[in-house]
């Protein structure tokens, strides 16, 4: 393809750097600086995609991020292909591959195009009215509907790119680097404010930077030159960070904004190796200046969607910025002066401009005069009533409007040849970010725009996003606003001379009349979703009144452009049809993000191993080296079991359990929460948080405690040791540690500030090795020969502070397995060594490391509960048959009052029991439900199995369960109905082993 559609006048395209890319499998060439859209247009490719519903051929409509039609699939690779990318935003690079989407077999011949002919059957909301017969068939219809819907295709392999986050705190954030944004950034940075300037484009300067007309001058310089000089000066400033290709996605409260910085999407495969693809900027700005400009509106008329119909500003940008000629026979269709700028600019480049069709009756503005003087024909009071050409615009039909603009002056229809129609429906301020932040808009009647009214935070909108459209207005208002907002006295922009053109006549018709009955026309309001003006009218006819209803019923504004082009027309058509004033129809809510934001960018590095924090104990390396399998417990990685050779989990656990009861086992208990408690009211504090009494616990003694929620339900448990008169160390469950700590702090700070108590977490300070089993005393004796381990000196539930070598240790003689057991706590950095020495010392006793699974089994044999496994937030201590740990004497403790409510006092609550299976080899499934009778419908469930194991020490299956009224069911036969069989069980005491606690003192 030759580049015969270029004009040689662009400063922004590097014609020495030719770039090859593929579109729909065919190779094309463009230049560095081109977008995919500009390069395709330069290659005379207008047909780019198909619409969502009717599969109508669509081309390039805009030159920016508001593009509804030209959306493509970029890349072939299954991991990095990307759907729904706007061709107007893709900067081309060597090797770029893109293709049309939502068409089959090809964009040129798309079977789905049949929908266009079926369109009479597919009005807004048709799917609510049909596909209901036969009743069971919806899901079959749905398959077909789903396959014809959707746009591009999701990748099917994991992304290989890297994304990152960055927090930025600045004094002033300027969004948009058009003329007013540049003025703002320069004013802020010059005044020692730490400033961040962002723009979604790859260049600064917005639309002014390619405004080369004599009609627009600042300080006697052509506006683009003036701005260029400003930018050069701006770049020299210190306090300023500039980021291009950076789109602000969301504006949250408290001036917290999210922006996507695109770092490599414009680069070829080789250039982007090992680079971060996109960065999510999390910005907290003291002040925000929104200078996001405005979006040109299309005009709504019959068949206003054909490839070749473009926004007039886009036609101009393609010519001025990219040097691309969009059509050989160009016509502009307008309701304002904008189109004349485009027409003149094209004309001066020698590009054919056939005529301008203007719905206004006349205009005497200077720019219109200039066009007339250049000999450009103008059809005043005319409108386009239809367009022709299937895959590319060929002709348009125009008619003269009646005075009121709702019908025609006569029945004469003129057909004009044209392959590019630039439409100009006026400008809509880009107030999206402003409204996202909570800002309230007002409607300006004179030019029918919504503009910022009430600001919810320290922010200001300037330039055309604030409704200032003419150059002199922009400069003056921006300068004044900045001085006030930034609290500065002088501005570079006071008293600038500005030359501009002034629009003198306005006329707006949201839905232009057609010579055909509206039911036969297709005046598109939302291009991508194929929502037309008649769909909106249908919705209103059917009683939908709210803009949100109309939007949802017709899907207007629900496409990937989120209504950037069509929302105003939808509002206008509703206002016109219902006779309500436009300002009173209200606006739809603009929701974040402003432009679609890649999931990967939001997630950043929180992927893979960084998805969630992992916590490891000091002994972790030993566990890994000894073949441990790990269990996730909260964020902790805990050793689960240690398989030897080909052992299954069951085999390993059986071996570990047996070894521990027969000789000795060792458990890494470092993960248990540990809270150091000091202060003169420490005992009183424990009295209030635990269900049992603490004042009389001797120094050096340990006690088990149960903690409730205020609702009386078991919350956490653990052993607390009295280290001194006013000094305790509390242990909590592994998973509950953080919550317990914060709950206790809460009570101390807010309910009981009078208590003199200090809590400090020391969970990580200590490594804990628990040695249990009949030989544990011998092992400990080897380790610390000078410690008297006699029951007299060191009884069960007591504590010793000792040294191993020169290292201080704390040893608690406590037991969660029912075995004689010592919990050795040492400063964490000595933990690994402690563990290894215990293993060494225990070698002759076959000391066996065991993990959480064996721990669970061993404690279940003793009927000890695990909070969270045997409880579920609905169990009181009474339900757990743990009355012994609930003080009757204490006046109050957390949760006490709740134990005396009618429901918590019921005798037939679910209560903790043991279960034995009739067949001692059958292991119950944890979670299995328990019944007493089958012949009920529905079956009444009495409770469920909470813990279940095969006990190698008892050589039978055992289980803990909660059963309605279980306390009084000892010996009763119950049933466990599984899917394929029923298991018979007997209710027993939950303590299966060593009821007399002989082993504790073995």
């Amino acid at each position, binding site marked *: 393809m030759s580049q015969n559609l270029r004009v040689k006048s662009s400063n922004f395209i590097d014609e020495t750097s030719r770039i090859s890319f593929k579109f729909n499998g065919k190779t094309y060439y463009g230049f560095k600086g081109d977008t995919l859209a500009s390069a395709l247009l330069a290659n005379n490719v207008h047909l780019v995609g198909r619409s969502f519903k009717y599969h109508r051929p669509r081309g390039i409509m805009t030159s920016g991020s508001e593009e509804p039609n030209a959306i493509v699939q970029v890349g072939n690779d299954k991991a990095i292909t990307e759907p729904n990318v706007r061709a107007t935003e893709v900067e081309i690079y060597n090797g770029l591959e893109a293709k049309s989407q939502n068409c089959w077999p090809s964009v040129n011949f798309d079977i789905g195009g049949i929908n266009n002919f079926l369109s009479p059957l597919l009005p807004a909301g048709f799917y609510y009215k049909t596909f209901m017969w036969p009743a069971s068939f919806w899901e079959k219809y749905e398959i077909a509907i789903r396959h014809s819907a959707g746009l591009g295709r999701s990748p099917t392999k994991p992304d290989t790119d890297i994304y990152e986050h960055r927090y930025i705190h600045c004094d002033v954030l300027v969004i948009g680097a058009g003329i007013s944004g540049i003025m703002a950034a320069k004013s802020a940075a010059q005044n020692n404010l730490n400033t961040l300037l962002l723009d979604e484009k790859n260049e600064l300067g917005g639309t002014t930077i390619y405004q080369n007309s004599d009609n627009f001058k600042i300080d006697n310089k052509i506006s683009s030159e003036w701005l260029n000089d400003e930018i050069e000066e701006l770049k020299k400033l210190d306090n300023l960070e500039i980021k291009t290709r950076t789109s602000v996605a969301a504006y949250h409260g408290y001036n917290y904004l999210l922006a996507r910085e695109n770092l490599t999407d414009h680069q070829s495969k080789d250039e982007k190796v090992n680079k971060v693809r996109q960065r999510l900027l999390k910005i907290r700005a003291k002040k925000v200046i929104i200078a996001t400009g405005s979006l040109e509106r299309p005009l709504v008329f019959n068949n206003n969607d054909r490839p070749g119909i473009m926004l007039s500003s886009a036609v101009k940008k393609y010519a001025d910025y990219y040097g691309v000629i969009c059509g050989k026979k160009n016509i502009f269709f307008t309701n304002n002066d904008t189109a004349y700028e485009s027409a003149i600019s094209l004309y001066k480049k020698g590009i054919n401009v056939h005529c301008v069709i203007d719905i206004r009756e006349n205009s005497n503005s200077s720019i219109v005069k200039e066009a007339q003087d250049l000999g450009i024909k103008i059809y005043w009071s005319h409108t386009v009533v239809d367009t022709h050409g299937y895959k590319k615009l060929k002709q348009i039909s125009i008619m003269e409007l009646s005075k009121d603009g709702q019908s025609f002056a006569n029945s004469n229809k003129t057909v004009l040849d044209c392959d590019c129609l630039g439409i100009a429906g006026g400008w809509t301020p880009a107030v999206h970010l402003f409204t996202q932040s909570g800002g309230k808009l007002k409607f300006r009647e004179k030019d029918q725009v919504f503009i910022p009214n009430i600001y919810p935070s320290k922010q200001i909108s300037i330039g055309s996003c604030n409704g200032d459209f003419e150059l002199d207005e922009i400069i003056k208002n921006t300068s004044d606003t900045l001085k006030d907002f930034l609290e500065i006295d002088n501005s570079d922009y006071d008293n600038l001379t500005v030359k501009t053109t002034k629009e003198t006549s306005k006329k707006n018709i949201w839905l232009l009349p057609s010579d055909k009955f509206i039911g036969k026309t297709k005046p598109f309001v939302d291009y991508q979703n194929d929502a037309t003006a008649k769909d909106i009218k249908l919705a209103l006819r059917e009683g939908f009144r709210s803009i949100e209803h109309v939007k949802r019923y017709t899907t207007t504004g629900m496409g990937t452009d989120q209504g950037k082009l069509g929302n105003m027309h939808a509002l206008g058509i509703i206002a016109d049809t219902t006779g309500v004033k436009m300002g009173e129809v209200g606006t739809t809510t603009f929701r974040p993000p402003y432009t679609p934001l890649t999931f990967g960018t939001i997630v950043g590095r929180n992927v893979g191993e960084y998805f969630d924090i992992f916590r490891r104990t000091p002994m972790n390396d030993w566990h890994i080296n000894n073949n441990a399998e790990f269990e996730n417990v909260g964020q902790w990685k805990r050793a689960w079991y240690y398989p030897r050779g080909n052992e299954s989990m069951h085999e390993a656990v059986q071996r570990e359990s047996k070894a521990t009861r027969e000789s000795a086992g060792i458990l890494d208990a470092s993960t248990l929460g540990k809270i150091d408690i000091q202060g003169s009211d420490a005992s009183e504090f424990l009295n209030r948080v635990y269900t049992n009494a603490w004042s009389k616990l001797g120094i050096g003694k340990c006690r088990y405690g149960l903690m409730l929620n*205020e609702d009386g339900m078991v919350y956490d448990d653990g052993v607390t040791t009295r280290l001194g008169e006013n000094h305790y160390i509390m242990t909590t469950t592994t998973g509950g540690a953080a919550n317990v700590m914060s709950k206790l702090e*809460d009570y101390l700070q*807010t*309910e009981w500030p009078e208590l003199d108590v200090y809590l400090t977490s020391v969970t990580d300070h200590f490594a804990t090795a628990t040695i249990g089993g009949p030989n544990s005393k011998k092992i400990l004796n080897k380790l610390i020969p000078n410690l008297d381990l006699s029951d007299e000196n060191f009884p069960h539930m007591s504590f010793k502070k000792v040294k191993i070598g020169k290292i201080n240790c704390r040893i608690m003689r406590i037991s969660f397995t029912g075995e004689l057991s010592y919990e050795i706590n040492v400063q964490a950095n000595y933990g690994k060594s402690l563990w290894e020495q215990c293993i060494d010392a225990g070698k002759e006793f076959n000391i066996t490391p065991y993990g959480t699974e064996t721990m669970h089994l061993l404690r279940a044999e003793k009927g000890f509960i695990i909070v969270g496994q045997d409880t579920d937030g609905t169990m009181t201590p009474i339900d757990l048959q743990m009355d012994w740990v609930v003080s009757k004497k204490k006046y*109050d403790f957390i949760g*006490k*009052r709740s134990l*005396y409510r009618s429901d918590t006092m019921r005798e037939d609550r679910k209560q903790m029991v043991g279960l034995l299976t009739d067949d001692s080899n059958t292991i119950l499934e944890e979670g299995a439900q328990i019944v007493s009778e089958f012949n009920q419908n529905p079956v009444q469930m009495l409770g469920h199995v909470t813990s279940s194991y095969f006990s190698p020490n008892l050589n039978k299956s055992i289980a803990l369960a909660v059963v309605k009224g279980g306390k009084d069911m000892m010996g009763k036969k119950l049933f466990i109905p599984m899917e394929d069989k029923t298991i018979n069980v007997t209710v027993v005491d939950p303590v299966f082993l060593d009821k007399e606690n002989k082993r504790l003192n073995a």
Partner: protein
Amino acid sequence: MFLINCPYCGERDQSEFIAGGEAHIERPKQPTELSDDEWAEYLFMRKNIKGIQFERWNHAHGCRKWFNMIRDTSNDEIKLIYKMGEKPPKG
């Protein structure tokens, strides 16, 4: 994301804080004296105000201190922050 002025540490990002619900619900000094209804009132019933709400926040990832906040729940505007134990302003 709120910017919360911790009365001890200064302005910090919301992610450093946890919210603790309605403020000034004092735990009854003598729970056993209360009827079930009164106890339920303390335990569960909340004003859940749309508008100016008094609530508790904790600088969990900073100084760990609890404090009070007055916030308009209809637009999330923080009106005032004051320390735990201080009396709420009138009006």
